[in-house]
């Protein structure tokens, strides 16, 4: 999986590309740690537009990110879910946990 980071207006977007699963663990973690450490970042946006597969360990990673962000007083939102990725997030009712931005 590829992760592209983009920051603007106190908001850091991590655009993910490819399969979001167990093997992504280290890359994803270091990307969001970096984003959260930036004092200017108030919100981390996970752009799932380029993700074609997401498994339950990916859901776990999103929950870890959320816990970490909350402990620093920052927020996490998800955006551009589609296809099976959207289905998986729907079944897990992640809209009750994360801010969903279209």
């Amino acid at each position, binding site marked *: 999986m590829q992760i592209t980071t983009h920051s603007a207006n106190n908001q850091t977007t991590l655009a993910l590309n490819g399969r979001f699963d167990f093997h992504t663990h280290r890359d994803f973690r270091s990307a969001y740690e970096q984003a959260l450490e930036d004092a200017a970042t108030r919100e981390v946006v996970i752009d799932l537009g380029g993700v074609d597969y997401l498994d339950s360990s990916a859901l776990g990673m999103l*929950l870890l990110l959320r816990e970490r962000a909350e402990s620093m007083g920052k927020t996490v939102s998800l955006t551009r879910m589609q296809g099976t990725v959207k289905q998986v997030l*729907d079944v*897990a*009712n992640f809209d009750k946990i994360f801010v969903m931005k279209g």
Partner: protein
Amino acid sequence: MRPLKVLVVDDTLANAKLVQSVVDRLGHRSFLAENGQRALELFETEQPDLVLMDVMMPVMDGISATRELRERLRAGKRWVPILLLSALDDISDIVRGLEAGADDYVVKPVNIQLLKAKIQNFTHQVEMQEQILQHTTELERWHAMAQQQSELGSHIMDRLINTEGLRNTLVSQFNIPAETFSGDLICAARTPDNILHLLLADATGHGLPAALTAIPIASAFYRMTEKGFPIASIAREMNLKLREFLPADRFVAATLAAINVNDQVVEVWNGGNPSALLIAENGALLKEWRSRHPPLGVLPAAAFSEQIEAIGYQEDCNLLICSDGLWEAENAEGRRIERDRILALFAATGREQHLAGLQALVQNHLAGAPALDDISGLLAWIPIERRSLPRVAAQPERSHLVHSGEWHLAVSYWAEELKSLDVVPALLDLICQVPVLKPHKGSLFIILSELYNNALDHGLLGLDSSLKAGGGFELYMQQREASLARLSEGRIDMSFWLHSTDNESVLDIKVSDTGPGFDYTRYLDEESLLKQTALPHGRGLALIRSLCSQLRYAGNGNQVIARYVL
């Protein structure tokens, strides 16, 4: 670089000394064997890291010794380099030596620079070999440990799953594990008033980690079902337990179902699992319970929702609960199993064939490919209860022992508590701590549930029980929920008196509410009562009658006294 033990094999002492001095100067330790036979002996006792072998020797030549050494090493899955020293005109000897298992050769007379360089090379190779061996040993140790953990996990899962509830003839299950055993947990158990509780839980990961999360879930399920708690409360408790000890990235998708054949109602709580399906005998989809909640272990207690969805059924039907492994299993073309194929299966076959049919469908779909995720399913056949009276918990043997002491308990619940507490299971837990009452738990649960529900639903909330008949159950439940939320005043008093009368030990149970009461005279003659038993709302009362020696209403009909003979 550690010094190597080098075995020098040569029958000519001058040659041997020369080679040994080269070895010693490189910082290694050498020792001498004067022929092949002696080399084999020393090899066993000294365990050298490198062998420098002359070819022409008495007793046993270098080629034979090399062949024998190499065979022994292969048998022990080891490698020690063997370097042949041979005269240049013995080129055929060299070829034979290499074929016999030597790694390299040096021609005689020995060029010291060349010998040094070759020994250095072998030193590196020996070191690498040692490292690989070390890694392999470590890997084997890890593998053995993983194997052990997997067996432990398998044992735990077996114990959690293999319980009475699943021996129920109406419930069947299948499990196709992704690894050696499945991390999906399937449980079934009955409440004291004969409601069947089912659970299918799918933890993140497989193997031991999945089994670890299954333990608190299974124990909460069995413990609370046995006490008669509703599935909503069980789900809440499981969520709490998992939140307590799981890290943030671990959770458990779970579906809980309650099948009440008396009232002909199925209730489901689904958090993170694929839809549970209620399927008619003709394959028609009667109800789909989508996932309405995040999986267990994700939300903090304050945000947790125990909202369940209930449906009344009017015909024989099947409840199917599957893990996502089933719906996400892809065949060689990347296609998944469509729901219509499963519905068609139910339509085409009798209920005895459903489970086998489902398993065959999945196996055919996978066509020999391994399952990437645990695939499990729980199937319950739900026939319409055709008897006029539902089955009752087994009656304990009458002891004929008169209870010598007396015991009394009185409790009152006001509106706020009535809204949020599971009154009956909690109260029953307390009551059954009295030893003589404990064996009667099943019957007492039924009596108390009926009396309490009547007091709450009809006494305080003013609900019309005739609504339940004729498929109005959902409407009834909606009204009940809304009325309960609005309830701001009112009280239910309950008292229990264990005493002896007419040489019998009896428990008198009195339940009263602050509602307006009802015209109980209508229900008192047996004739009209029996007519009511065909209706869901009439069954409760008939059931109490069958369990109690006396049942009478008092006041405005807002008081009821039941006498249970021990």
